[in-house]
């Protein structure tokens, strides 16, 4: 056990700026716990130097103090502002919540993200078509179209700064009949123009040249050059990592139980499922499918969220399409499409099925059939494709018909970023920008952080050392070094799905069955050697979601505290 005696000078608490200790990587969690224990509850930074030493950089306005910690010994002093009142707590670690926390982390504020699962991107953000839309088809004048318009401006820089895998392939909306062609010309072209998105109609020859697998019966199509494909998990994770590097605290594994406004309306108290209380001046509701339940906690019933399932089929076969191929949409969905995937292969789907259960992400035979049926209209040969994976995601359909990005009518301290039905990934930077504007118009003092980190350092790149290159995942050639890097980078996750999304391991033909035991060995020895806590303090290995135990740890779970 790693023991440190800390000397904390509480009298230093008068400073106007909260001092911070950035904490990530090795021993970070131990430290956080220790600092919480002594009553220091500010977001904590620490930088890992090597296995025995931790270096802290504490910024007190203009002064920087460096301290070193050795095993069993503390030879420095830390001055920490003891101010347990946070400026903003963001509820929900999906793409919207993490985009917001990233944007807020660029200001001198005390911020925190709470996510009920053990990783970011465990809900709607992880199971979707991965398209970054231009918003060519959004309803002009809607909040959604404004967020998409803002995002169009923001994405190019974000893609570079966050090293987001992105395929600028463009999309084509296929006209299967004269009626559809007319709908494109009469509705979608002027709609795109109203939204400031460049589109052009192409004839059959060009359509088939670019997408030889598309049915020859089509008349032509509307090309939207600006549409592209990304890795949604990368985006979400990178937003959160950047926020963490900028001092935001990210808290996994406990959802919000209730929200209690202070009697004098000076702040909110957010009570988590684990009983801990977080006091914050403002909260942002980015709880996706559950955002209506969060609103309900302040007696706000202004909107209701219902889930709409979308089922997908992933194929690794080579299809003759170079663009996102989509049909003319229906009122409930953009339609069943075929899109390239950044890692190779193609995604087919989604369906649009309204349901009540916010947890039911099961695929169905009817859904798979509906996907194939839909794609078949675009690509007649699709039924012969093989699949290595199928999945379903749930859209958060809002009763208001548009995004809800505004303070709650019942509490000005709760800002909604909710009702993000379909284009959450695409519009997340714009949503974050609007939320920042809303918060700037409050009594919060938001000064820009002068040393804010804007670019994600190379945290998860190829492992360069052959000395740590043992292949663990055979299907995808993922090495021990890559897995260890994923475990040691900021925002590490010790669920198997967390490792999967950070490294690409387990995504191949065997779907992890061949490598999970080996992965558990690597994780076991790595976390043990670094004294890291496992997801949620669980000893039994978790697949992804809470309670998703792969197996029981030797000795059984019952003996756990």
């Amino acid at each position, binding site marked *: 056990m790693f023991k440190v005696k800390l000397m904390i000078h509480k009298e230093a608490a008068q400073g106007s700026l909260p001092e911070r200790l950035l904490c990530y990587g090795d021993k970070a969690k131990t430290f956080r716990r220790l600092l919480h224990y002594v009553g220091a509850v500010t977001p904590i930074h620490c930088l890992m130097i090597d296995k025995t030493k931790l270096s802290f950089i504490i910024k007190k306005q203009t002064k920087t103090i460096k301290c070193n910690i050795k095993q069993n010994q503390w030879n420095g002093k830390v001055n920490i502002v003891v101010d347990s009142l946070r400026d903003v707590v963001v509820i929900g670690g999906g793409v919207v919540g993490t985009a917001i926390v990233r944007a807020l982390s660029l200001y001198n504020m005390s911020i925190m993200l709470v996510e009920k699962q053990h990783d970011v991107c465990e809900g709607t953000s992880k199971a979707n078509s991965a398209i970054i839309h231009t918003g060519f088809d959004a309803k002009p004048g809607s909040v959604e179209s404004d967020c998409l318009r803002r995002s169009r401006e923001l994405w190019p820089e974000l893609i570079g700064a966050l090293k987001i895998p992105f395929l600028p392939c463009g999309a084509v909306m296929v006209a299967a009949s004269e009626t559809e062609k007319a709908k494109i010309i009469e509705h979608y072209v002027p709609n795109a123009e109203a939204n400031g998105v460049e589109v052009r109609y192409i004839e059959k020859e060009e359509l088939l040249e670019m997408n030889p697998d598309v049915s020859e019966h089509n008349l032509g199509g509307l090309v939207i050059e600006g549409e592209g494909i990304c890795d949604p998990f990368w985006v979400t994770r990178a937003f959160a990592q950047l926020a963490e590097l900028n001092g935001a605290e990210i808290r996994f594994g406990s959802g919000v139980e209730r929200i209690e406004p202070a009697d004098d309306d000076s702040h909110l108290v957010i009570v988590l499922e684990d009983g801990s209380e977080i006091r914050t001046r403002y909260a942002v509701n980015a709880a996706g499918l559950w955002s209506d339940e969060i609103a309900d906690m302040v007696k706000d019933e202004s909107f209701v969220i219902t889930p709409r399932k979308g089922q997908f089929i992933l194929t690794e076969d080579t299809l003759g399409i170079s663009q996102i191929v989509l049909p003319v949409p229906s009122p409930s969905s953009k339609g069943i499409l075929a899109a390239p995937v950044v890692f190779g292969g193609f995604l087919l789907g989604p369906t649009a099925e309204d349901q009540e259960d916010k947890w039911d992400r099961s695929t169905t035979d009817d859904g798979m059939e509906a996907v194939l049926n839909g794609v078949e209209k675009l690509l007649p040969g699709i039924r012969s494709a093989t699949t290595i994976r*199928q999945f379903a995601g749930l859209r958060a359909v809002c009763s208001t018909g548009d995004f809800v990005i505004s303070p709650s009518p019942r509490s000005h301290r709760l800002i909604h970023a909710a009702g993000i039905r379909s284009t959450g990934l695409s519009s997340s930077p714009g949503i974050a920008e609007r939320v920042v504007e809303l918060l700037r118009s409050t009594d919060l003092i938001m000064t820009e952080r002068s040393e804010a980190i804007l670019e994600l350092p190379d945290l998860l790149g190829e492992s360069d050392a052959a000395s740590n290159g043992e292949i663990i995942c055979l299907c995808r050639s993922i090495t021990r070094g890559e897995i260890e890097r994923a475990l040691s980078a900021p925002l590490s996750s010790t669920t198997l799905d967390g490792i999967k999304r950070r490294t690409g391991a387990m995504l191949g033909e065997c779907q992890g069955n061949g490598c999970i035991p080996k992965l558990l060995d690597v994780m076991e020895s790595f976390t043990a050697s670094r004294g890291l806590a496992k997801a949620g303090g669980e000893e039994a290995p978790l697949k992804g979601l809470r309670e998703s135990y792969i197996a029981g740890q030797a000795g059984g779970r019952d003996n756990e505290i």
Partner: protein
Amino acid sequence: MKYNLTIIGAGIAGLTAAAKAYASGLERVLLIEHQPVIGGFTRGYIETSFFETEQRLLSECAALPYTIMTRSTVVGFFTGDGDTPHQLFVQTPTETEEIQTDYILIASGAMEKPREAWRISGGRPAGVMTPAMAVELSQRGYRLDEGKTMIYMADRRSHGAAEYLADRLGETIQVSAEDFDIEHIHGTAQLEGVTIRSVITGEAERVNCSRLLFAKGRYGSTFFLKGLPVERDESTLCIITDRFGATGIPRVYAAGSCTQLGDDGHTSSIEMASEVADHLLAKI
């Protein structure tokens, strides 16, 4: 290092060929094995009653004087022209080694085709795994005895796993692949139940359980051949060979369940590898 013959995979097929090579007096032979121990797919259940022949083979091979690189994987494969040797890059736990070899025998075996390959509908909960994964977990001390386990009995691998795990699982229910299809998986975080459908009566039934051991069919472990002119079956990734194990590349042979001539239960691997080895050794 330069070898006469490099055998990729120290499983049943690879070891059969190695034993043949030794009997024929061949000296410079290398075996490359991804796992920490030899034995291939049987290493989990070798002690069960289904693998007596394989047990004998393993004990015979224990004394082979050939170099066996374990925890090692082929990560690069460059074919030699004419008489120039083939070049392999092998990743070991500590380095990438370059190997020159005149002949190559691919005996890399196969992995189980999981639930996803069969488009089985339902949720994606924890608790659904292949028999081999269950055995590997159990060998590491992870407990599988909580709740009920359904085992889908498809071939020798699931029978071996069922026997090996017999006293390591709690309540079990065995479902024969000949009689039932797995139709739907229930549960979000943790498996709650499985709907099976009788292929005889057509009736479906939901069985509540917290674990499903399922695999049907196989994928050849041939990922390192991507980009090489070795013909593989698209849906199984198995190497297409003639009956003597010849692939599309001169001096590169394949045998066992990594080929289209192999079978899911690996029952023909010894015989096939034996025949391919005879043919191959006659040429060296």
